[in-house]
């Protein structure tokens, strides 16, 4: 939203002043964000998770597919910090590897659904009459589609051709991100449209128009930034939903191949051993829980930090 505002927009004298008062937009947003203690903890948590899954496999060099039947479903110990699974594979190594996919699927699918949702919602919200009606009709259509059967059909249709072009991992990743994104943009579009409906009648939009702002300018500079609060929160929920949707697909054998241990996949594999090896489900579950919670708090903090009306 404040993306168009350079950090130091002023002439020298005023810039010094501004710096003294610490009010450049980004530093102001950062100051506000820091006030949100949970959001700050969440940033640290999420950053730690990203670093772990990003660099962990180079430090924790246990292979993810080393089968050791002597250590089946072993409880956490020094050699296996998170224990082992039903084949005696090291859970920690598997989670580090799978976390990359789970987190990036979540984030990419969120970006996808937000982009589609914001564009469709904005176009519908700013145009009256038939365009709006048509787009909302499409939105309702997508909402009413039975998603799981359609997912199956889509994946069945496109998986092999994508695999052929991009290779098995990237191909499936793209497919899953697009498919999840395509099925989660509707709430965002409705949210954005509703925001636009109220915002486009606001006096400051009228004032901008009266001072010569073109329609795209009114939308991008004046309406959109004011409508992003709820969108950011919806986006954080989408990350969570995408991580979980990915695990559903993996479980049905339609997501990533079974040898790629995404967190959702691990969780589903673990459900048969809940009574004898609770740690097997606990660790991937906790990872999903932590990631989702952290992203939600960050969304909360961002919304507060980027809303200058809120006195903090």
């Amino acid at each position: 939203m404040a993306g168009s505002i350079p950090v130091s927009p002023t002439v020298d004298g005023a810039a010094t002043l501004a710096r003294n008062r610490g009010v450049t937009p980004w530093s102001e947003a950062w100051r506000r964000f820091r006030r949100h203690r949970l959001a700050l903890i969440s940033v640290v948590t999420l950053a730690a998770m990203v670093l772990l899954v990003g660099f962990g496999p180079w430090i924790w060099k246990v292979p993810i597919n080393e089968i050791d039947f002597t250590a089946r479903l072993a409880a956490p110990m020094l050699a296996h910090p998170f224990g082992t699974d039903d084949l005696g594979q090291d859970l920690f190594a598997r989670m580090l590897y799978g976390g990359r996919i789970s987190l990036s699927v979540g984030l990419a699918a969120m970006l996808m659904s937000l982009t589609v949702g914001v564009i469709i919602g904005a176009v519908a919200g700013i145009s009256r009459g038939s365009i709006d009606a048509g787009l909302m009709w499409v939105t309702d259509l997508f909402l009413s589609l039975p998603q799981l059967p359609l997912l199956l059909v889509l994946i069945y249709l496109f998986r092999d051709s994508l695999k052929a072009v991009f290779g098995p991992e990237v191909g499936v990743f793209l497919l899953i991100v697009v498919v999840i994104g395509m099925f989660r943009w509707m709430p965002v579009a409705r949210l954005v449209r509703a925001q636009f409906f109220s915002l486009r009648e606001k006096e400051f939009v009228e004032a901008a128009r009266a001072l010569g702002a073109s329609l795209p300018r009114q939308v991008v500079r004046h309406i959109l930034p004011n409508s992003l609060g709820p969108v950011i929160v919806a986006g954080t929920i989408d990350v969570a939903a995408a991580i979980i949707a990915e695990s559903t697909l993996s479980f049905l054998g339609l997501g990533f191949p079974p040898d790629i241990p995404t967190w959702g996949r691990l969780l589903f594999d673990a459900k048969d051993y809940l009574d004898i090896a609770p740690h097997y489900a606990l660790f991937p579950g906790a990872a999903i829980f932590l990631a989702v919670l952290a992203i939600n708090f960050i969304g909360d903090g961002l919304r507060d930090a980027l809303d200058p009306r809120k006195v903090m």
Partner: protein
Amino acid sequence: MSSPLLEIRGLKTHFATDDGWLHAVDGVDLTIGHGETVAVVGESGCGKTVTAMTVLKLIAMPPGRIVAGQVLYRGRDLVPLSSNEMRQIRAKEIAIVFQEPMTSLNPVYTVGDQIAEVVRLHEGLSRKAAIERAIEMLKLVHIPTADQRVHDYPHQFSGGMRQRVMIAMALSCQPKLLIADEPTTALDVTIQAQILELLAELKAKFGMALMLITHAMGVVAETAQRVVVMYAGKVIEEAPVGELFAHPRHPYTQGLIRSIPRIDTAATHKTRLETIAGVVPKLIAPPEGCRFAPRCKFAQERCVSATPPLREVAPGHKVACVLS
């Protein structure tokens, strides 16, 4: 005098509603000379704001429609212009200040950014130069420590200060005509006086014309040179300000002036404040004849049979009433 700055001829702006066409502005003629202050008065719903919005073509179309008439700005008709051409006119030639300063600024940008946006849009200045101009404009509207306040957000300003910012924004490209649509209605009385003073001062400084829309007769007496009284979408009387207050001809204008509370008589004479009975008529399918007739004490047969034309009764004094 050469051609006036703004000349509105027979303007009709109608709105589509569920009950039919609403004749919000129904044949308005209005002239504003270079550097002149013209007040447009009338009670709520008489078409003042719609007239102003039509000049800048800010009416939502649909449901609005300019049915007839011309808006000549320096001899050029604005009505047929495309929205691109209108954008060049807005702020650069004709600017407008709205009634509601609390909501007329975008809450997510600093006031400096918002003023700078207007300047950059119309004059293509660099960001730095535009911010400098913004500071300059804020100084002009007497905002203390403007070089610091320029980085503040709208919520950090009071109502009167925000209206000053709005004025700074409107004037940042030095328009030739400023339309002030009830600029003081939402403010308390002491601030009102300050804002009016500021407008008068800036008007003198920039040599621009001012179209002041208001329903406060006190504001009119203080600032305007000429007054246009509107009623139910029509101009019913037009006169220089002194002449209007001394010899109001139209019964409606007389009523308006009598309904101003007076501090000098209120204390000694225990009289009720005069009002004009009734309300503004519905503007959907208005009947023939004078629109004020149903509320007029002097209404006669001929008032309802035909619409009285606006005619000159004294130099510069026009009135639309059969009685004068």
